């Protein structure tokens, strides 16, 4: 690991200021991706701005019928949070299935979505529930947040403060993990929320995406059978030694059906 200057501000303002001090500075949330990347010397930030001392970035609260989850809330906290389990159990389950227990104890919601790993779980929920990402500058609709592989709508130095998840009528998440890394090779989040049906997929493509054909089919009939025969084109899907594009495309259908089945 290359050396850097370490900052541990107590407020969002101080954090943003510290981050702005150098163009090679970076925020450190849980560090579950950043630190391994730095250890392998694939990243060499000049400054690390550790967000862990900022009090008001963690926790879950109900806000106008939605759940606001602080960006620094760990996956383990989301998984075990009573409010999340009561209002959006699918989100608790998703968080409880990220990485391993030690990753869940350190990794955070904000860190995960800011990193926008194509095989991370959270993007499926952000997109699948139509969440809103709240930053120090603005609110970004979940539909606009994920741009491409490791690329989000966040601007340079913009800091995610929380994510607001609408409470769905029903929602479920099913994933097929990569056997080696245990990241999602395909993860599908299905939800009926705010009068619409959403199907969001992570792992399969460079960035999380929605499947309108499945959404339409489920709007007509919210059943696994309604999804049979909806073939996702393999074009544009990720392909690696663990799964070809064709296999991933197939798994999108299987996981979508399993998510829906889990609700019946």
């Amino acid at each position: 690991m290359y050396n850097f200057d370490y900052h541990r501000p107590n407020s969002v303002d101080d954090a943003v200021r510290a981050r702005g001090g150098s163009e090679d500075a970076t925020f450190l949330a849980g560090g579950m991706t950043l630190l391994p990347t730095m250890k392998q010397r694939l990243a060499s930030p000049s400054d690390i701005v550790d967000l862990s001392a900022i009090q008001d970035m963690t926790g879950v609260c109900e806000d106008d019928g939605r759940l606001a989850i602080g960006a620094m809330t760990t996956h383990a906290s989301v998984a075990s949070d009573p409010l999340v389990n009561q209002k959006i159990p699918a989100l608790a389950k998703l968080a409880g299935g990220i990485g391993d227990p030690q990753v869940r104890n350190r990794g955070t919601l904000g860190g995960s979505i800011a990193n926008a790993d194509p095989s991370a779980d959270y993007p499926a929920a952000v997109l699948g529930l139509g969440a809103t990402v709240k930053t120090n500058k603005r609110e970004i609709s979940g539909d606009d947040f994920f741009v491409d592989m490791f690329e989000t709508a966040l601007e340079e130095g913009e800091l995610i403060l929380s994510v607001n998840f609408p409470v769905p009528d029903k929602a479920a998440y099913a994933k097929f993990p990569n056997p080696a890394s245990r990241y999602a090779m395909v993860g599908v989040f299905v939800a009926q929320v705010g009068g619409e049906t959403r199907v969001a997929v992570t792992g399969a493509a460079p960035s999380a995406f929605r499947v309108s054909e499945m959404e339409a089919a489920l709007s007509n009939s919210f059943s696994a059978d309604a999804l049979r025969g909806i073939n996702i084109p393999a074009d544009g899907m990720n392909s690696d030694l663990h799964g070809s594009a064709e296999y991933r495309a197939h798994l999108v259908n299987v996981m979508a059906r399993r998510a829906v089945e889990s609700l019946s």
Partner: protein
Amino acid sequence: MLTVSMTVNGKEVTKTVDPRTLLVTFLREHLNLTGTHVGCDTSQCGACVVHVNGQSAKACTMLAAQVEGADVTTIEGVAKNGDLHPMQAAFKEHHGLQCGYCTPGMVMSALDLLKHNPDPSDEEVRHWLEGNICRCTGYQNIVKAIQSAAQEMRS
């Protein structure tokens, strides 16, 4: 350089370190607590699991600086007065270790599991150990040991 203070196995320590010093390096090289091991560089093997403020964490994927002010327990802090903790005793009783390299991480992870779930099923134990790789045992006796410790600790 940074000055970092924390409590490790009940003792307060303060050291001046490079900002890039990982917690595992801090423990092994600055405190000579070599029971916490390094088995990979991608945060997957779990040989380095310790407790930070009572939660299991991978010491290879934390900066010592991030642990400022925290309470850290390593494998060296588990046995009391030379007596094995019931979890350690169960690993011995059920042959839950062979080469011993993954063992400290396994024990620390298993202790955290029982905090959350004092009566896990075999499946829950196996699932919890997703972040701990053992190459020797085939995990069977590790699961057995954890179940036995769980029973002992419940009674």
